[in-house]
Every structure is written in structure tokens, then in C-alpha cells.
């Protein structure tokens, strides 16, 4: 029987070589390895053999069978791969064609800025609040240590509300469009809770319109009132913001300034990201900044008169306040190229889609 098996093997291998497709492979399987196939036929003769022969031939037959099956499987895999390759050619796509983007929505530039500010100051426990945009002179000026006739009032080009051909007046003075968000300072203190850490991001209005000024813009106002608030904490708070908003390599600087409602008062500067605060870039004066620094906003320790106007005792409570223009701050962030701020509120979709 051995020669028969050898012969079978040779025949099988030769036939297998000629197989070209799945169908041929299946036919070959049926012919040789199937239930009624050639291998089965030969093995039927086993029962006629002696026990001795059975042992010997049986083992040999198993080896041949395993060998044939193994070769067959390999061929099967080869054929599958070949076929897949051919099929894949029919399924070819161009992976280099331009991507098709869904039509996305867009949050406004200012909304995105506000979102970023809120996220940062939330981490320090500042609670977002909102105060009127149309308010009394009292909150906009008087309670902020700027009595009537105070020259500093001129620094805010204020819009007034009309009552016929006069300025609208009420118990708390003239009605104005808030020229800054600081009107919220005394309003928030009047609520009577302590400790207080608020951020108020709101629209403010000034009579100005040129490349760097828009009549409506946003300010961020931060106010912390508590016991034992220090200038060092204000500095820490500002630094915390700057490193998160502008980047960990940016430095802050406080420079003396004057605001009637804070004492001491300062301007808040951040180091220039072009010259890194040196004021020099590639051997020349840095053209992006003022001597290495950008002015961001104003800040200070809340004036005792303002604490008093808020109904608190300045001997017990003190605090700090800071503020800056949202649009300006956002456009200062590296990479922004907003030369004309007036575009921000024009609602030109070509602008809005870029953010």
C-alpha cells in the first residue's frame, strides 16, 4: 500500500500546482481528501491487512494525510490572498483626494475668548456674575471714588441715555452705558456675601471708533474681597492667568499707574513673545512691543472708599480688582493678526468662519 500512497501524494502535489481558483481547489479536495476521495479509497484496504501491517501502514498513511492537508491549506491561503489582491484592485479609492469637511458651526471670537477666561479663573474660585450694561452714574463713577467733576471721568468716553432732549436721570444720577465693567464692584459687594471672588465679563461702551477702538467691546473684571488680601496675591492671580492663557514662558510685570478706585494702582504687562521681554530682536529694537512688554490691563488694591461704598468696613475687608479688554487680550495671543478691531462686530460671515 505504501507505493500507492506515495503515488497518491505525487499526483496530489502535481494537481495542486495546477489549481488556479477556489473552484479547482474544492474539486481537488473532493477528489483526494473527500469522504469518497482517493485517499479514503486506499485506506479502505487497511482492514484487509494483518495487525502488524496495519500498525506500520496506518502510521505512514497518517503522515501522508497530514502532509497533504497541510500543503492543501497553504495553497488555500495563497489562493485567498491572490484573490483578495485582485478584488482589492477593483475596490481602489483615491486616498489623496481633498477631505470633505462637514459644514461646521462657529462660536464668535468673543464667545471663545470669554470661555477661555472663565475656565482659567474658575480654577481659582472666581464665580461668574453679570451686572447691568445700562447703569447709574453712581455705580459707574461715584461709588468708584470719582465724585462729580472728577477729571478721571473724562478718560472714559461715556454714552449717556436720553430722556427727551435731556440726559436721563434717576435717584442714583445719570443713566449711562457702562464704560467699564467696574460698575459691578459695588453692585457685587452690595449683595452682602463674603468672601467674594467674582469675574464679570460684559459688554462695555465708549464713544470711540477707529482701527484700535470699537464703541462696544468686552471687559473682564475680576474682584476679590476678603480678609487679609495682599498685593502679592493679586500678582499671583495675574501670573496664574497669564501663564495659562498666553503660555508658561510668559512673564508678568506690574507698573505703577493711577485709577481712582484702586490704591495702589498699576498697569499689568506681559512679556513680549517675540523678544521675550528684552526689547531687542535680532539686534534691532523689537517692533512688536514697548521695550519688551505689552500692556494688558489695569489692576490695583480696591480703594477703601469703594469698600465703604459697598457697605463693608475697610478696616476689616480689603481686596483687589483687575480688568482688561477681552478683544484686545484675545488678539494679543500669539498668532492672531487682527489689525482692525472693528471687524469683530461686523458679523461678516467670512470673518466669523475663521474662528
Amino acid at each position, binding site marked *: 500500500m505504501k507505493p500507492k500512497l506515495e503515488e497518491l501524494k505525487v499526483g496530489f502535489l502535481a494537481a495542486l500546482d495546477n489549481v488556479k481558483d477556489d473552484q479547482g481547489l474544492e474539486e481537488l479536495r473532493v477528489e483526494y481528501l473527500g469522504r469518497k476521495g482517493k485517499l479514503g479509497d486506499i485506506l479502505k484496504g487497511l482492514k484487509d491487512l494483518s495487525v502488524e501491517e496495519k500498525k506500520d501502514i496506518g502510521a505512514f498513511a497518517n503522515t501522508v494525510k497530514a502532509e497533504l492537508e497541510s500543503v492543501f491549506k497553504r495553497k488555500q491561503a495563497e489562493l485567498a490572498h491572490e484573490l483578495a489582491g485582485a478584488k482589492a484592485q477593483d475596490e481602489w479609492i483615491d486616498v489623496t483626494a481633498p477631505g470633505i469637511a462637514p459644514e461646521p458651526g462657529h462660536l464668535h471670537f468673543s464667545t471663545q475668548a470669554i470661555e477661555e477666561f472663565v475656565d482659567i479663573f474658575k480654577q481659582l474660585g472666581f464665580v461668574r456674575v453679570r451686572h447691568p450694561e445700562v447703569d447709574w452714574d453712581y455705580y459707574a463713577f461715584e461709588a468708584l471714588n470719582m465724585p462729580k467733576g472728577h477729571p478721571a471721568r473724562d478718560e472714559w468716553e461715556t454714552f449717556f441715555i436720553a430722556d427727551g432732549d435731556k440726559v436721563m436721570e434717576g435717584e442714583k444720577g445719570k443713566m449711562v452705558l457702562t464704560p467699564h465693567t467696574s460698575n459691578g464692584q459695588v453692585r457685587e459687594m452690595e449683595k452682602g456675601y463674603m468672601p467674594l471672588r467674582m469675574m464679570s465679563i460684559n459688554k462695555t461702551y465708549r464713544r470711540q471708533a477707529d482701527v484700535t477702538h470699537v464703541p462696544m467691546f468686552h471687559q473682564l473684571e475680576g474682584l476679590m474681597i476678603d480678609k487679609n488680601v495682599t498685593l502679592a496675591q493679586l500678582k499671583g492671580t495675574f501670573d496664574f492667568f497669564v501663564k495659562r492663557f498666553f503660555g508658561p514662558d510668559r512673564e508678568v510685570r506690574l507698573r505703577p499707574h493711577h485709577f481712582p478706585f484702586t490704591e495702589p494702582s498699576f498697569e499689568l504687562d506681559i512679556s513680549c513673545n517675540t523678544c521675550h521681554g528684552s526689547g531687542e530682536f535680532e539686534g534691532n529694537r523689537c517692533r512688536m512691543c514697548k521695550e519688551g512688554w505689552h500692556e494688558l490691563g489695569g489692576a490695583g488694591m480696591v480703594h477703601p472708599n469703594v469698600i465703604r461704598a459697598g457697605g463693608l468696613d475697610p478696616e476689616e475687608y480689603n481686596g483687589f480688582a483687575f480688568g482688561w479688554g477681552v478683544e484686545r487680550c484675545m488678539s494679543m495671543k500669539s498668532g492672531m493678526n487682527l489689525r482692525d478691531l472693528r471687524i469683530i462686530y461686523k*458679523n461678516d460671515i467670512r470673518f466669523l468662519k475663521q474662528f
Partner: protein
Amino acid sequence: MNILASYNWIKEYLQTEITPEEFAREMSLKSMSVESIEHLKNRFENMVIGVVEELKDHPDADRLKIAITNIGDKKVEVVCGGQNLCSGMKVAVALPGAKVLWHGEGDWVELKPTKVRGVESFGMICAPSELGFEKAPCLDGGIWDLSDITEASAGTSFVEAMDLDDVIFDIEVTSNRVDSMSIVGLAREGGVVAEGEFEFKEPALIKGGAGKELKVQVDAPELCPRYMAVVIDGVKVGPSPLWLQNKILLSGHRPINNIVDITNYILHEYGQPLHAFDYEKLGDETIVVRKARDGEKIEALDDNTYDLKADQLVIADSTKPVAVAGVMGGAPTGTRDDTVTVVFEAATFDPVSVRRTSRALNLYSDSQLLFEKGLSTKSAEVALARAVELTLEVAGGEVASPVYDVQEQDYKSLAFPWRSQKTRDIMGVDLSDEEMIDILVRLGFKVDGVDGEYNVVVPFWRDHDIEAEIDFTEEIARVYGYHNVPTVLPDQAPPTVFEDPELAWEDRTKKVFSSYGYIEFYGYSFVSAGDLERYDLDPEEAIKLYNPLSSELTHMRTSLIPSVLKDIEMNQGETPAGQVFELQKVYMPRKGDLPEEKSRLVFGGFGVKDVQEAFLRQKGVLEIWAKSMGLELKVERTTDDVYWHPTRSAAISYNGNRVGTIGQVASQYQQAFGIERPVILTDIDFEQLVSSMKVQLRYEPSPDFPAMIRDIAVEIDAKMEFDKIKNKLIGMDELLRAIDLKDVYQGDKIEVGKKSLTLSLSIRSDKKTLSSEEADAVVGKIERVLVDQMNAKVR
């Protein structure tokens, strides 16, 4: 307010070796912000004195000359158009490499050798404005003739010849620190915050004279706390010497004549404005400080005539105003070349009065700028002494009157108590009392007291600035250096109040719309009356600005729709279709109170082609938004709202209250705003809904048995609303769980007045998987209802 300050001048009062850059850095960090530093030597590099030796005609241009100019080591040809140029003239020549201001404007531009109309020109002969001295005395547009100004020979550098080797700082002075709007003030600050010894040289006391007496009278002492005057006779009025002119020019003033220049010099040096009258022009040799009389006029030094009002303070002679107090002198009584006797005035005026008068007359000056910030009565006397000292030196003459000095009360220094621990607490820095007192003393304060409780006397130049104890903390903190203060985060317990929920709902709303492809509009809060009227909103019912910036921005908006429509119109050229939303405040007036600021939401699409489809898509977004806000909104047809298309709009309500509208903007408004294609908007009273908004998370388990979906097509009246069909059918069989509208068709194959609907029925049992027969039974039942009760045909 800014001051141009010469470093050389500052150093007349401050003995220091530090560089201008070091000075500027220390000042910026601890005192006043130095915005720029200008080295004149650099600015005038390659700028030399030249002497014109010969003028030749330009071959191709009548108005140009070729000047053969001696520049020391050689003679060069320079093409020049200056009509006053003549041979022998000493001029400033900008050689190639020098920087000039082209026509006196713009940025400094570096010169290169160039051809002017075909003729090579080696540099340029300059007019004052081209050197940045547009205020230097010179013929209009002419070349700066330096023949009488400098002795320097040809080839000398311009800086050396003109004695201009100086550094000019542009310094921003805060409005409370008027004392630093002066050279002396800056030198004093420099001595404290930078390095060096500040020394104030007191001018010599005035020795009173006689012969030209004055009558000086102050009728309004509340507006003029101090008035001083003195007469100098025999002065020779004329151009100032070079050093004086230079200082005047570098300070940004215009040299006029030596007397006027002296007043400006002292204004800049001491920060105290002065005025000089021609003694002969003052009627009856009288000076009266009084309020103006209605109808009085004055011709001021700017050559304009101003009508005065009764509350405005003037300086008058026996009959007429001769100066607007603190603002500007009168032209007829000013000093001129033929003036021989001058009256110097040094006074203090009420800051508010000066400010009001200046605003009312729309008349501004360097004097007014200082007076309205508040000056000390004390500074008048030093300034007057300085004026006399300088006049005698520069213009000659002698004092010919006593020193007149009218003040109601003698000067008394201000003083405040100060607790040193307060300052330490606020700064968060542990400074010793000695360190702090040292700072105050160096700034000119006098400090008395022990054990942390002090009395601090304020120097006169800080009279209007220091108002309370807290101000001492600022002085100490800034001189210590804010940059030296540590950076620490607040360690107090955080507040426990809640955020205004409206803000969070607004954020969420904005996110919903932006994530469904809507672009956020963010418009001005103010619109024009016309914008409101175009949408039939009454401007009388809106908050109106008293002092609008333009007629385009006059009223606070009471609806977002007019601005949205306006913006759609503006965009439709470049962006023919789009989806936008705006969530902002509108401002509703309330009598006798602040307006109510209410949030409103508008969203929608413009450039719409298929209104039915656009409406349904928008309604879908409305539903998604409502679901995210936890709101169940009802949308029902409305036909009588003039703002909306009569058959393409629906009222939105919540709990029985109308909260908005969805639909097509009525065609009359679409036209009024010039919009080409239909606009579908949803307008929501956000404010009204906000208190009902809630986060709703609800889990419904998935059904255990599958639903069978069966579609049926029916032909039905074209105006039969889906809601009616659905409400009719949904209760017909408990296995019918939902009805959806899959397709609507109207056209060729359908009878006019009818439409074909494909309804998709979802049939499901909670107990078992339904058989096909069971589902068919439900479909059959539904079809019968449609046919029998709703006049439909099953297709």
C-alpha cells in the same frame, strides 16, 4: 498725559551717572512709564552743517536749484527746492545714511544718494520739519537758515553745532501726578527710584522795585486761591538764545519770543504755568480776577474770538477780559517785539472751573492741562521767582513793582496719620518701618511718630494727589518695586455662592447651535432708529442714546431681528446662504428705572430654496435645543402675526405661554431689508424660559421585542396637517407605538388639491414578537380610519 523730557535738563537737577536706558527702566517700574527713548546723536547721524557756496539752475526743473555745498572736507552738489536758499547760507545737510522725516511726516527715512530729475544729489538740505522741528521759527516750507544760530563751521556735525547731544524721553504721566509733568518733578522721582542725588536750586528771591505799579484784585477767591504778579520794565523782546530755543523745541513747544519762551520753559521745568502781559496794554494798569460777564468776548492767543459766560473765570483789566484764567491769554495784551514792560502772572486756579471753561469753549492748552489736575498754591511763588531770574538774564530790564500776592489764607501743609502695619498687610511684604519711612522721606514727606503710628506731612507738590492713609502704601509699594513683591495665590477659603445659572444655559445654548452648523452673530447693542422702523418697531419704545457716536448707532435694540436681517443683507453677496444664531440682550425701557436687560435667542437660515424643508430642519434643531434645555415646547400654527409669513409660521409656547415664533420672515420685512431669498427664523424669549431650564437625564430601557415597521402611502387633502393625522391615528391600536412621516409628494401623478404621504408605522408589543399577520391587522385598521374618517385614498 505725556511729557517730552530732556535727560540733560533732568540732570541739571539730578546728579547721576546712570544711562538713559537704566533711568527709563527704573522710572517705568517704579514711577512713570517711559514710552520711548530718543538719542539725538543717533537721530542726527550723518547730518552736518553745510555752507552753500554757489547756486546753479537745475537743467530740467525751474523750481529746483543745484547747491554747491561745502561740507567741510569737500564740496558736494545737492539738489534743493527751498525758495529761500541763497549762497552763503549755513544749512543742515542730511548726507546719505542720515534719517529725515519726508515732508515732516511719517517715519524716519534713511537717505540714499539719488538723482533728482536726472541730476545726482548728494543728500538733502533740510527744512526744520524734515528734522522733526516743525515748530522751529522758519519761513513756511523754507530751508532752515542756521547762519545766525550757530557759529560752527562747515562739516561740523549737526548735533554738535546745535548743542543737541541729548536724549529725549517720552514719558506718560498719570493724571494724579501733575507734579511729574515737569523736569524738576521727574528729576525728583529719578532720585528716589533710580540713582543719584536730587537737588532743587531755589531761584533767587525777587527784589521788589518801583515805578510801574499795578492794581491787583481777586474778586473770585474761591476760584483763584492765589494770584501773584510782578512787573519788569525795560526788557528787550526778541528771539531766545539757542539753548533756550532748543529746550523749548525739544519739549514740543514753539519758540515765540524770549518772554513767551520763558513762560513755557518754566511750565516745562516746574510744572507751573505762567502768563506774561504787556503792561502798557492793560487798561488802567489793573488786573482783576473775576467771573466773566455775559456777552463778554475775548480774542485769544490762538487768534480765535470766544464768547464768555458768567460762570467762567477771567483775568480782566479795568474794562475787559485779558485772559481766560488758566486756559489762554488774550492776543491784544500779549507780549510782542515792541513790548518793553511785562507783567508776569503766577496763579492757582480751581481745577474744576478750569476744566469746565476749557470744555465749554473747546479751548485747550498746556496750562489748562496742568491747572485742571490741581496745582499747589505754593508752586506759584517759586515759578514767579524763576521767571524774574530768567528774564533778567535773557531779556534784561529790572523789576519795577512790588511782588503782588493775593491769597485768602496762608499755605498750610496737608498731613495724614499712617499705620505702618497696614502697609505691610496690604503689600504682603515684611518691610521694616525704617525702610518704609526712608522711602517716604526721600519722596519729600515728613514723618513723625513712634511704634507704627505716624503722622505724615505731605510736600506741597503732592497737594492734590495724597488724600488718605492708603496713598502712603502706594508710594512705599511702588518705590519698593512691584516686581520685588512675591507672586502667591490666594489661600483664603473660596466663596460659596453659586454662579448665575443663566450664564451656564447661555453657554450650553451657544454650544448646541454651533455644533449643529450655526454661525454665531455678535452685533452691536445699538442700532439706528431706521433699523427699528424698518421692522415696524417704535424707536420711542427703545432706550435712546443722548450722545450717540453716529446716526447709525442711536437706540438700544429691543429685538435682535432687525440687526440679524441687516447682517444677512450685508452677507448675501458673498455668502448667498447660511445658518446663523445670536444670543444677546435686548433692552426694554422701564419708567423711572434702568431698562430690563433680557436675553433673546434668534436662529435661522437665509438664502433658503426649499422653505418646507428648511422649516422642518429648523424645527428639528429647535427640538434638539429644547431637549438639551429640558424644555417641552409646543409649536402650533399661527396665522395672524404680521411679522411672519401667514401660512409658514408657528407660535412656540411653553406651559401655555407664548415664548417665541418659528417661521418665514414676512415678505414685507424681507423686502424692507433688501434680502433676496426667504429667511426662516426662530425668535425665542430666552429670559422667560431660563428659570425652567434643567438638565434632564432619563433612561428608557430598550424594548424586549422588536418593532415591525410598515409603510403606507395615502393620498389626502393637500392642506391636511400631519399633526391632525397623527393625533387621530395614534390611539387607534395599542400596538401602534409611533407614526412618522417618511415622504410627501405632490405633482403629476397626484390629483390637484391632494398630496401623497408615506406614513411609517411602528408596531410593537411588550409581550411577544408580533407575527406578520398581527402587524397587518393593525395596518388594516389604520387604513380604514384614514379612508373612512379622513377622506384619504390608500395607494
